[in-house]
């Protein structure tokens, strides 16, 4: 057969028509061959400086103003200017349409890689993975961020920059504990969120009546009527979403401060799935770009030279230094993800006996894409690794498990290695490293002393003897106390309820000068 397919581009130069051609060619393969289901794409071409900008607002095109983003920018810029750090080739945003930023200095090959990677790989993952479906609202996010940005600006105008900054500082300190881990009753709808914020404010303004201030209060309720069960029920305790608890129950916050906490909480929640699916997300995108670019080359739409350029970048991306290499900084999610996807492809299409034993459900079924798509939709890193990391890949990457007990004077013990006895232990430990529920400290609000001094009581369930870093914990608690406006205490207890450490913090300032 001598069908001469036209090259998508020659050399390194590209223009917008080229991008369009590349996109269309990729889409053809992605949809027909890989069966991907994607949001419409929007591709934005940006400069290096804009890329730096985007880095410092969590990759989002618009974000409220805060000094910490400026700090990050200054830091990154210094690194970048000194040449210590290269910039990412792309940033992709989980929104509909799915926005991918491409750097203008990428070559045509790189643009192809990036389009296949972000606009198809990540895009499919965002649209289909259950965590993203459950926790993010791709249609509403950009509008919501816009609302957040203008709301913060408005608050600054009304209440002063200082007050807003203090509230945001405090909220940021608690951001990692402002997340709902269990799905609620209804799907998140950020557009409705925004509308409701406006309605709430309007209602407050309309319903304001100074007379209420003068109405005499009745006799105080007897303390007995609020026994502990009822109190905890009223306050929704125990509550691990600290920001949510403060937003709903902090006694002296102004309504705009509650709204700010809400915005920070929503943003944290929006990013929550990304933290739980790093390996899978990057693995999916890398696998997709590899498949698409390889097919494009087979079709003759990319020249051999450009394909070699692609392979070089691809190899850099999936490079995994070994643990004793000076470049080692943890397991590269691209490497692990891509290797696992390829491994699954192998298991499905060409399994060894060992694979049949370990993966009876998928081994040899022959349906590569259907299997992968199902995995992409229904797993997160932790469950993905604990289900699909194969002995063969463990051997290939020569994984081993270290157990470091500070009380053990002899040193660090090698607990398991990539052998018959160790496969399951290594896999279990690796999966656990990706479980945010284990990685993040488990802190919850347990009670409020309503009868006495209104102290807010928190509890940190210590796992494996890891206490909170003291200096940071104190500062965070101060922020927390500022929002709560009364004392806050935190106890760290181990599994047997033995108190290991105790903190008390008092509010430094009354943020809300009511």
């Amino acid at each position: 057969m001598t069908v001469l397919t036209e090259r998508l581009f020659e050399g390194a130069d590209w223009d917008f028509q080229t991008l369009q051609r590349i996109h269309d060619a990729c889409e053809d393969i992605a949809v027909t061959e890989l069966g991907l289901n994607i949001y419409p794409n929007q591709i934005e071409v940006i400069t290096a400086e804009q890329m730096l900008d985007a880095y410092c607002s969590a990759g989002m095109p618009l974000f409220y103003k805060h000094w910490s983003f400026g700090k990050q920018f200054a830091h990154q810029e210094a690194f970048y200017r000194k040449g210590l750090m290269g910039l990412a080739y792309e940033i992709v945003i989980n929104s509909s349409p799915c926005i991918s930023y491409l750097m203008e200095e990428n070559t045509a090959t790189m643009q192809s890689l990036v389009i296949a990677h972000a606009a198809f790989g990540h895009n499919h993952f965002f649209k289909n993975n259950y965590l993203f479906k459950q926790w993010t609202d791709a249609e509403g996010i950009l509008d919501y961020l816009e609302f957040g940005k203008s709301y913060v600006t408005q608050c600054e105008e009304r209440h002063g920059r200082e007050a807003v900054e203090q509230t945001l500082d405090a909220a940021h300190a608690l951001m990692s504990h402002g997340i709902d881990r269990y799905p609620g009753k209804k799907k998140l709808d950020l557009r409705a969120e925004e509308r409701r914020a406006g309605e709430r404010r309007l209602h407050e303004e309309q319903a304001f009546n100074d007379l209420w201030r003068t109405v005499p209060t009745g006799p105080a309720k007897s303390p007995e009527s609020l026994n502990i069960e009822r109190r905890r029920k009223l306050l929704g305790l125990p509550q691990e979403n600290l920001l949510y608890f403060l937003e709903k129950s902090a006694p002296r916050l102004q309504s705009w401060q509650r709204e700010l906490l809400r915005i920070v909480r929503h943003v944290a929640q929006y990013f929550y799935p990304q933290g739980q699916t790093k390996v899978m997300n990057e693995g999916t995108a890398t696998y997709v770009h590899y498949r698409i670019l390889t097919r494009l080359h087979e079709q003759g739409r990319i020249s051999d030279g450009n394909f070699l350029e692609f392979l070089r970048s691809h190899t850099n991306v999936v490079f995994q230094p070994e643990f004793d290499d000076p470049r080692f900084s943890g397991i590269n999610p691209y490497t692990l993800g891509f290797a696992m996807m390829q491994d699954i492809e192998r298991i499905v299409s060409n399994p060894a006996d060992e694979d049949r034993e370990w993966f009876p459900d998928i081994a040899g079924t022959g349906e590569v894409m259907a299997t992968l798509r199902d995995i992409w939709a229904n797993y997160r890193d932790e469950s993905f690794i604990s289900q699909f990391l194969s002995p063969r890949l463990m051997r290939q990457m020569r994984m081993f498990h270290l157990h470091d007990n500070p009380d053990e004077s002899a040193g660090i013990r090698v607990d398991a290695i990539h052998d018959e006895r160790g496969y399951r232990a290594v896999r279990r430990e690796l999966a656990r490293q990706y479980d945010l529920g284990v990685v993040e400290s488990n802190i919850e609000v347990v009670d409020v002393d309503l009868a006495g001094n209104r102290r807010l009581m928190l509890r940190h369930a210590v796992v494996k003897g890891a206490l909170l870093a003291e200096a940071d914990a104190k500062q965070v608690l101060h922020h927390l106390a500022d929002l709560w406006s009364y004392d806050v205490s935190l106890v760290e207890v181990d599994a047997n309820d033995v108190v290991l450490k105790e903190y008390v913090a008092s509010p430094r300032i009354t943020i809300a000068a009511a």
Partner: protein
Amino acid sequence: MAMHIVDRRLNSGSKSLENRQRFLRRAKALIQGAVNKSSQDRDIKDVLEGGEISIPLDGMNEPRFRREGGTRDMVLPGNKKFVEGDMLPRSGEVRGKASGAGEGDGEDAFRFILSRNEFVDLFFDDLELPDLAKRKPAEVDNEGFRRAGYATSGSPSNIAVSRTVTLSLARRVALRRPRSETIAKLEADIMNCDEAERTKLMAEAEALKEKIRRIPFIDPVDIRYRRFEPTRKPVAQAVMFCLMDVSGSMSEHMKDLAKRFYMLLYIFLKRRYRHVEIVFIRHTDRAEEVDEETFFRGPASGGTLVSAALSAMHEIVRSRFRPADWNIYAAQASDGDNSNSDADVVSRLLTEMILPVSQFFAYLEVGEASGNGFDMSESTLWLLYRRLCSDGAPLSMRKVSERNEIFPVFHDLFRRRGSLQKAVP
């Protein structure tokens, strides 16, 4: 499926500028300390180029709940020789350990780059000319333009369209300019009427058309322009006298110090005060007023007579800067050598002529690099000035013998003081 490509490269790239400014404002005290520190061992030229500074990280910390210690488990790639049950020594060898924990690693300093403007602004931030009190209303400054009604003449770009159209409408109504609808109606009538009527109507229509031609839609008399007026505001006038000893007793090192000091002063004044006149006077046993270029670069040598410079300054004040209207400042740099016979003249000139009219008089004594010149004896000029000082004259005096002392001394001299506090040494 539809795909959009958006070219964002033309958007302004400085989206983070606002955040950056917030950050700088927040970290101001820390950054200022770092700026002053870093400027000490740099050349003036370099200082003004901005550059990298580092501030302690804990001042700008963003705290989070994070854990440390306890037993840790980690899975690492690249096993070569370990088997289950091996014990590895805790220090060295296993490098994965530190990064495996992944959380607590941070630097103790936060480094970033300040632009030239940011740097100089911060550097001069807490400095000012003391006692800038005399404000002469006559001297005014154009601050820009503001709207001031309408004018009948002006540039075409300033045409006030709505005002012009309003006026034209008023004129057309007043002159009874026929409306185009009236003519259209008339012409329609002409079509549908009999012969006798027609001529009459046609004449009428003709008359109306003629009238329309005579009364233009917009006449030059209608046109109005938006008028702008320069706004002015009174400013304080100030003059800085820079007196420099260039006599033979000043070594190259001393001259270098003095010039650096004045360079800094010059940049400070140029940057912070737009209305400060600067008069450069250099002297040996004769004094001359020179321009900036000669002052900083020109060579000169000779004997020393401080009174010459002071009387030259006095002369210039008398002829050009009326003390009632001007805030007068002076900075003098010298090695302190002066003939004893001159002391009385200097003292009289200063106490009677110069200090009474000056807001602030700074004296900088430059010494040899090793600093041994100072320890042995006080110079004649230093002794004299100190006496004047203790009599309550507004005189500040400092000594400098090393290049890196210039910045602190400069800062010290022009530090912002409380409004009540006079400029005292």
